[in-house]
């Protein structure tokens, strides 16, 4: 629509623009139409940005932004967030041994337990994230190393993945499904959370693994070959090879057929490459069961990690984050502070302009309309 009309014009311009003289001459010897457009006399609104007119805008911005900012700031502060680094760089940390022994192609998994204490109870629904640092998911070689058609269930791409997936395209002469560096490096630590009852017994905090991926990704963008609800998913992936770093094949990610293969939500979440080298990804949801009991009580917890994912070599860090969410998402004081700052600056500028306007305002109007 708009683009096409633009192109038509562009063509027009090109046609005679380069030639210059050609088209214009044709219009001569005719009296020009006396239309407002051709005479450049279209009726127009001619706003002038003077201190006087801009002043109110600044005050309005100030008056609107400061309350919004305060609101955002308060909201952000009310969000409870708990973060724990379980990488195990420090020898004193529980996962030190795991981190030292692990290499990316080791097959044996290592389990470690990290105890922590929540000072406050998390009242509403809690979101559990894992976070990685210094992990360049936005590296170009990495970002493009995937085959969206394969992930969308394209049968031909299943057997012959895109060239972009190199060097994770084939293994042992068989095509890799899912191919590419992103899929290959799927985050495979398993995090389990235990609440330590005051009596010393551990009780498993139920983690829900559905609803962590975008609905559209799960239902449209990612599809198993041959449809999502196949029971013999193993057969579908016959003739393909698992990604080299994976311990199990893609059809073994979960027992639930709704969450297996390409539509496994952990996998989908991982496939959405992060914007920055320090990022977090949604891992599990902890639903509020009962209105009376907080989702996570204050007290001691143990995080049990099946330590599979090596980050030490590139100075990476692994974190587990528990957070509640408000309407504005997770804890982020930036927006509130920025709003308050901008609002105050605008208000201040408004005052400055007011002074300028009053002090120098009459100076300009002394100019007369020439005639």
């Amino acid at each position, binding site marked *: 629509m708009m683009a096409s009309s633009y192109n038509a014009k562009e063509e027009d311009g090109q046609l005679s623009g380069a030639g210059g003289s050609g088209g*214009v001459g044709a*219009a001569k010897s005719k009296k020009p139409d006396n239309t407002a457009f051709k005479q*450049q006399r279209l009726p127009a609104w001619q706003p002038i940005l003077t201190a006087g007119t801009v002043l109110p805008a600044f005050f309005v911005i100030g008056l609107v932004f400061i309350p919004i900012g305060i609101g*955002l700031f308060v909201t952000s502060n009310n969000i409870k967030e708990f973060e724990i680094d379980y990488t195990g760089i420090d020898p004193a940390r529980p996962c030190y041994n795991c981190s030292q022994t692990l290499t990316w192609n080791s097959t044996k998994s290592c389990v470690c337990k990290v105890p922590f204490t929540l000072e406050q109870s998390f009242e509403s629904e809690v979101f559990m994230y894992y976070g990685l640092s210094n992990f360049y998911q936005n590296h170009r070689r990495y970002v493009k190393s995937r085959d969206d058609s394969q992930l969308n269930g394209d049968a031909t791409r299943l057997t012959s993945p895109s060239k972009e997936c190199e060097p994770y395209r084939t293994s042992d002469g068989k095509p890799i499904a899912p191919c590419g560096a992103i899929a290959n490096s799927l985050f495979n630590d398993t995090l389990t959370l235990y609440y330590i009852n005051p009596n010393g017994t551990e009780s498993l905090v139920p983690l829900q693994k559905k609803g*962590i991926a975008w609905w*559209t990704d799960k239902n449209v963008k990612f599809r198993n070959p041959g449809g999502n609800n196949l029971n013999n998913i193993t057969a579908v992936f016959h003739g393909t090879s698992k990604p080299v770093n994976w311990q199990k094949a893609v059809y073994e990610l979960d027992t639930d057929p709704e969450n297996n293969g390409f539509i496994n939500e952990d996998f989908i979440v991982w496939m959405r*490459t992060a914007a920055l080298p320090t990022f977090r990804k949604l891992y599990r949801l902890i639903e509020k069961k009962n209105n009376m009991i907080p989702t996570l009580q204050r007290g001691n917890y143990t995080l049990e990690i099946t330590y599979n994912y090596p980050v030490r070599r590139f100075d990476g860090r692994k974190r587990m984050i528990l957070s509640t*969410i408000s309407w504005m998402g997770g804890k982020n004081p930036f927006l509130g502070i920025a709003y308050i700052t901008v609002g105050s600056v605008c208000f201040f500028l408004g005052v400055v302009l007011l002074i300028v306007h009053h002090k120098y305002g009459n100076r300009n109007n002394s100019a007369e309309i020439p005639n």
Partner: protein
Amino acid sequence: MDCSLLRSLINRYCAGEENWVDSRTIYIGHREPPSGTDAYIPQRYPDNRIVSSKYTFWNFVPKNLFEQFRRIANFYFLIIFLVQLIIDTPTSPVTSGLPLFFVITVTAVKQGYEDWLRHKADNAVNQCPVHIIQHGKVVRKQSRKLRVGDIVLVKEDETFPCDLIFLSSSREDGTCFVTTASLDGESSHKTYFAVQDTKAFHTEQEVDTINATIECEQPQSDLYKFVGRINIYQGQDEPIARPLGSENLLLRGATLKNTEHIFAVVIYTGMETKMALNYQSKSQKRSAVEKSMNTYLIVYLCILISKAVINTAMKYVWQSDPNRDEPFYNQKTDSERQRNTLLKVITDFLAFMVLFNYIIPVSMYVTVEMQKFLGSYFITWDDDMFDSELGEGAVVNTSDLNEELGQIEYVFTDKTGTLTENSMEFIECCVDGHVYVPDAICNGQILTGTVGMDMIDSSPGAGGQEREELFFRALCLCHTVQVKEEESVDGIKKGLQPCGKSSSVYISSSPDEVALVEGMKRLGFTYLRLKDNHMEILNRDDDIERFELMEVLTFDSVRRRMSVIVKSSTGEYYLFCKGADSSIFPRVIKGKVDQVRARVEHNAVEGLRTLCVAYKTLAQDEYESVCKQLNTAKLALNDRDKKLAEAFDVIERDLILLGATAVEDRLQDKAADTIESLHKAGMKVWVLTGDKMETAAATCYACRLFHRNTQILELTTKRTEEQSLHDALFDLSKTVLRHCGSLTRDTLSGLSHDVPDYGLIIDGATLSSVMKPTEEGSSGNYKEIFLEICRNCSAVLCCRMAPLQKAQIVKMIKTSKEHPITLAIGDGANDVSMILEAHVGIGIMGKEGRQAARNSDYAIPKFKHLKKMLLVHGHYYYIRISELVQYFFYKNVCFIFPQFLYQFFCGFSQQPLYDTAYLTLYNISFTSLPILLYSLIEQHVNMDILKRDPSLYRDIAKNSLLRWRIFIYWTLLGLFDAVVFFFGAYFLFDNTSFTSNGQMFGNWTFGTLVFTVMVFTVTLKLALDTQYWTWINHFVIWGSLLFYVVFSLLWGGIIWPFLNYQRMYYVFMQMLSSGPAWLGIILLITISLIPDLLKKVICRQLWPTSAERIQNALKQSKKDNVSEISPLSNRKTSKSKSSEHRIPQPTSDK
């Protein structure tokens, strides 16, 4: 064209040195001359094929592509495209290939079509039949098969197929009439003459028996110059040699008129004809804005390269750690690992270049060209510049210079036909001091001027009577006027009513002559016609007097006079000479010189064009010697002009002064007003004219170039005779500088009226000595002093200028150290050189043909239209295009700098921040239409105010909107905005979720957020700059934003089957579903816009430009006038209405 030229060159040079001769010999009808005559070197001539097309079917594609990629911009984009094809680059080659392909294809199709038209036209010309004489018979032949030496028969209204020497005509007197409208634009009929000795050959058979050779110069491009000689062999006698001049040469492209048929011999063919040699491509003029733009481009290219270099270097520093270079999760392929390091560095550098190349967008060139092309329509459409008399409006020949119209510092104008109407009216004549004024009543009544004049007696005696009649006869005879007969009137109109509506019209290339002959008619002497070489005059007694026209010593601008030699019926020879006073008086030995001179000077001061008339009688032997002199001069093959001039000089001597005439050339409508406006706008106006000083000065006073209080400085031959040029120059510069030194401050403030301003008058001779390099090399010095004087004069009048001198002056000013922008305006062929030389050439569609208009960049019907052209259109276009250029750079800094910053966070891996579709469409559709529209219709000040207050033009003088300061401001603003976009999004994304369902966003959402903020900011920034909001602006600006949103929804809305990635799927919708994203977008847009808004407001408040003052004042007055609360739009219209009332439209006559 190239080929044939090349071929002839090769032929000439390969044939050896001695074969290269500067004349050619042609055997008429290919008939060998009798043996024994000189052996001529045979030469090869090209055939008569005209090739104006550039391409053939076979070479079109390669040649056209080559031509197009010679443009530096196209070449740059081609390189980028090739780089994208060859190496693994972050963005798809489509992103730059598609726009480039589009631009190239459209241009190629257009050029191909034009060339096809040219081919068709060439073929039509080359195959059109011509009649040639072979063995005494008329044979039809295709035009392209004509050979040099063929004899051609041309019939009435046919166009000459090549350059011909006129042998004979169907008219008894051996003349023919020709219009050269397609050559030089003059539509009047010109008379050409057959060779005297062959004009009797009337039939094919007779013509075929001509045995003659023609020697002539090799083809050259001057249309009005030709030198040749014809040798006619009759039996075994010595050949008769006759001179051939341009009056015998019929040019290709001219058309035969009023003559049944002619015979002529081919001398120049094909690409050697004068018409073909005049196919000169005009040199491309480039505007100051374009030059600034190119400088900025270079700056941006440097920025681009340094960005790429920085990132490449950083990349290798960062990658020195192998765990970063190749972590376990992101392994390289084997081929990547094995690649040579140097190759890798180069590849990386190129990849960065490709990633950032959008900073110099293809679309800028397209947009600028479109702006210029479409914008020029407003000039052609302008009703105010439409002349109902002429039925034409302004014509734009090059749209490249629209904005240059707003930058003019010097205006060079021609006087006659430009400042003045060039419709001459005979006012009076003065014979021996008696003044005769033809009055309006038809009857040629004589009035003697009495008022305020020292007349000796009012009734001239018998001798006086005789002199008076001689004077009238002289004026009736001494001219080159033609009589155009409506039908073949032969003796029917006996002139019974001498002033009745006669059926004949006088035509001449000089309107002065027509005015004189018509004036004579009113005084009782009517020139009837030239018949059989006899000029017929109807005298007061209704008798026809016949004079045989012996010789015409034609007018030229160096000699500034012309003469005729006639033989009266009584057998006396008379030489009548008429010319400028300065060229007549020194040659006069008798006559009432003083009285006439007094009258001439009086008239000159009145602004009338004066001519003096003198005569002498020649005895038979004198006449014969004159004839001989002329003939020898005319026969000369080399230096003919010089020899002719010498001969003329000898002949036009010892004259007896008869009297003088005065012709008025009325000032053009509103010329004074226009000049005054140009002055107020800070332009220096120079009048360059061939006229005499007094006349020109009078015109200058009349059109208020000089005011009463202007102190006139003269630098004329008169003065340099008394004083050496050196002293004169130094005196003047002292006078000027003394005043200016003390008043610099006032003049700087621009509006000092009480300062005596200076006007300089200089004449051609002095000027050439100023410019002439002297042996001591002090000419540079003179030139400098002269320029210094000129700089301090508000008006300069250069009189007595030869056409080439006009161009020299323009060039001198153009290349002086400030490099001011010059404009030349003129109407005649003599102004073409200066029109071509100046930065902007404006042609007036005048009476002296269309040559000036055709060679100009812009043609306007009247001088007064210059005011609107410069003050309104020039101003607007300059403002518009400077915003366009700056804005384009700004928005691309905003676009690319976040990408640059992003590299620091993605391991310098050339990961693009935005999706391919966004990269491609950002410049093509999301942000292009608003700025294009802005650059077409923005008006910061109403056009009536611009016209009313010319001083507003000073606001934009000296390319003020494209200074480095402003360019840097825009660039910094772009950088600031880019930083805000990027880090705003960065902190927003900082390790947290911002959806209410806790889900995370990826890198594409990050890019989309930045991109959305950017599109909105950049568009709203333009909205803030827009001061003229028509409904189209609203439509386009809000439409563009809406289009962006709709496009993004659509682009992310479905799985696109043809794409091999689906990275944008639902990204935009997911982003919009998040509250903080909305808040963030609003916040970032606000932050980005505030500094610019603040700067605008503060600058307007504290340091307003004059345009802004006027806006403020208007607003104030509006507030005062309309105290009732009314919608803003209403107030606007009422305001514009009222201003329209105040200013009557210049051309309200319909």
